[in-house]
């Protein structure tokens, strides 16, 4: 996951409701002038999400290039810290101080698009569509709204990391990690049994991506109702309940977050954990003894398609410098510039053809390259399983339902039915 979701839950309910409020006041003329054509001039405010600390040089170079290409345009770059980003966006949306070009993920773009604050790029910049991977472009299409509301920017996907030492101890073949969910459940159960419940296979309960990879249909085609309570979803949850009872899930799995399960994996308390191409560096630095027995494999999946995380650039529909804002957002997400970014850090460009670059196809024997090549390969078919309208609040609803079912406090079917009903209610009122 590119951006671990930290304190996002606190203000999540606020975000949607307040943006809905603003929509009444502020979006009166948003449909009026979508023309992004015009002279590229004026000052564009560009907001990134926690990228300044590590990539200052890259972005300053990018901005200088843009200003050289369009001498009448200026770019003012601001960067927001990791935490509290949804709250910041909603306050800016309410106060009318949203920057011209904003770094968003699809779920963050959704309330803004609904409030009429995001420019429909299919209309304003549809000519660029062909430059991007189709799946990436469509990931910013919002159910119930026409058009696409952000340029796709960088993508991420992760391999599955596993601990060969723990596999060996449990009598599992460290060279044959599980590939499908059935194999995973079997291996987890035998590991728990062999180790006398001391070593857990997984650190967390299933999230929405797991439902997706298991092959559960998450939403109906029109995007108007959630469907993860279908029999397939119940089946997945029942499996997890058995695992939890057998001690194959970490004892703190019910409250685990991406960060905490990563830590459990580093402590070598769990044997398998999803990660991203970047984690390898972290392991090397923070857990050298784990790094020595690390195994890397594809994500466990029944559909054969990995999960993809997308970051995008949204253009403010009320921007005073729309032509320049669209031009800049396109410039940042251009193939050449994304490729340069990908060489700085382990992200993957969303532009067509970039993933065929030798950088993403040729192995050079190092682990880092192996992870990168494998991830790039899986990205070509990857899907963003998380439905766009699934807000942080709804994720919490699902999480609580899963926790109840896994503990055996509620039957899986009833728990998921309740979660779906609650999410549908939030979807309607949000």
């Amino acid at each position, binding site marked *: 996951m*590119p*951006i671990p979701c*930290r304190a996002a839950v*606190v*203000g999540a309910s*606020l975000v949607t409701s*307040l943006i809905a409020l603003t929509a009444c006041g502020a979006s009166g003329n948003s449909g009026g002038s979508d023309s992004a054509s015009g002279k590229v001039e004026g000052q564009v405010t560009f907001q990134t*999400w*926690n*990228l*300044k*600390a*590590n990539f200052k040089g890259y972005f300053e170079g990018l901005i200088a290039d843009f200003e050289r290409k369009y001498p009448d345009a200026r770019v003012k770059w*601001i*960067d*927001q*810290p*990791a*935490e*509290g980003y949804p*709250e*910041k966006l*909603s*306050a800016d949306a*309410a*106060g*009318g*101080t949203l920057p011209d070009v904003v770094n968003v993920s699809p779920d963050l773009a959704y309330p803004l698009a609904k409030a009429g604050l995001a420019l429909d790029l299919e209309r304003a910049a549809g000519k660029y569509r062909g430059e991007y991977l189709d799946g990436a472009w469509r990931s910013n299409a919002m159910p119930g709204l026409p058009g696409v509301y952000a340029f796709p920017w960088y993508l991420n996907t992760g391999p599955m990391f596993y601990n060969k030492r723990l596999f060996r101890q449990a009598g599992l073949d460290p060279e044959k990690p599980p590939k499908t969910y059935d194999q995973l459940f079997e291996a987890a159960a035998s590991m728990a049994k062999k180790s006398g419940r001391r070593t857990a296979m997984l650190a967390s309960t299933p999230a929405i991506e797991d439902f997706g990879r298991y092959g559960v249909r998450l939403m109906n085609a029109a995007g108007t109702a959630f469907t993860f309570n279908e029999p397939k979803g119940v089946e997945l949850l029942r499996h997890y309940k058995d695992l939890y009872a057998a001690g194959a899930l970490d004892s703190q799995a019910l409250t685990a977050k991406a*960060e905490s399960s990563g*830590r459990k994996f*580093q*402590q*070598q*308390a769990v044997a398998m954990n999803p990660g*991203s191409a*970047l*984690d390898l*560096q*972290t392991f090397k*630095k*923070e*857990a*050298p*003894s*784990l790094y020595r027995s690390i195994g890397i494999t594809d994500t466990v999946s029944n559909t054969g398609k990995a999960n993809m995380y997308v970051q995008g650039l949204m253009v403010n529909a009320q921007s005073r410098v729309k032509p320049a804002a669209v031009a800049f957002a396109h410039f940042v997400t251009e193939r050449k510039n994304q490729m340069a970014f990908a060489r700085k*850090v*382990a*992200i993957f460009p969303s532009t067509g053809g970039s993933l065929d670059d030798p950088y993403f196809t040729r192995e050079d024997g190092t682990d880092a390259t192996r992870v990168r090549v494998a991830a790039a390969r899986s990205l070509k078919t990857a899907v963003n399983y998380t439905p766009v309208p699934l807000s942080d609040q709804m994720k919490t609803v699902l999480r609580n339902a899963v926790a109840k079912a896994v503990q055996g406090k509620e039957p899986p079917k009833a728990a998921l039915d309740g979660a779906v009903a609650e999410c549908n209610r939030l979807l309607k009122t949000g």
Partner: protein
Amino acid sequence: MNRAPGERRLSARQLVLRYLLLLAVLALTVGPFLWQLSTSLKGPGEDIYRYPPSLIPRQATLANYAGVARIIPVWDFALNSLKVAAANVLTNCVGAALAGYALARMRFRGRRTALTVFIMAMLVPVESIMIAQFVTMRELQLNNTLIGVLLPGCIGAMNVLLMRNAFAGLPYEVEEAAYIDGANAWQRFARIALPSVKGTLAVVAIFAFMGAWDDFLWPLIVLSDQSKFTLTIGLNFLHGTFADDQRLVAAGTVIAVLPLIVLFACLQRYFFRGVGEGAVKG
């Protein structure tokens, strides 16, 4: 052995038990901080999430602190925080003392109502009015300024109540005597009442400082320019988008906590007196 009369003899077992309990509580409260401190001193190549955790770094280094300063302008952020926190201490001490004195000693119509309003104000959760506050600040053109950060918290209702109770606890007769000697309200406030509540004032000062220094969400919402960020926001940049370096995060945490420890050490004498002084305890 000589013993002073009245000193009770503790059996060795009781003494040991007492110290063990105290040590257990100490470990609970100080342990996490020590872990942060030790993580911030650990060099590259050490397991930091080892279980059981090791507190003594094997390759102790200060490089992480230098790393923090390299990634973010940490001293600029600290200066901004200091400005806001110092101003917050000043406005809270002055404002809360004045308002508290008025509520405790002045007789005027609506005094009870005013007190009720102050108590009611404490019941409103800050998060629920944050966006409204932000829109207000924008109307006042104070968004993206440090004044905007300061304003909503500059006189806390809790502090006013603390001061009110401290003043109300003073014997009325002293002020009556001053009144007979011809002192007006200002003189009674400044010369008689205020010097008697120094302890509570120290409590207000330390709460105000901590509140401003630790606040995250409001400054985040009101500020946009990095040059104006306060330390809590700035330190958040250490959480990398792609990978966290826990050593840097720990070093940042220690930098952030240090001023609070220093302040507490300085005001400690007054602080414990103050906690007992008013009836409302923080």
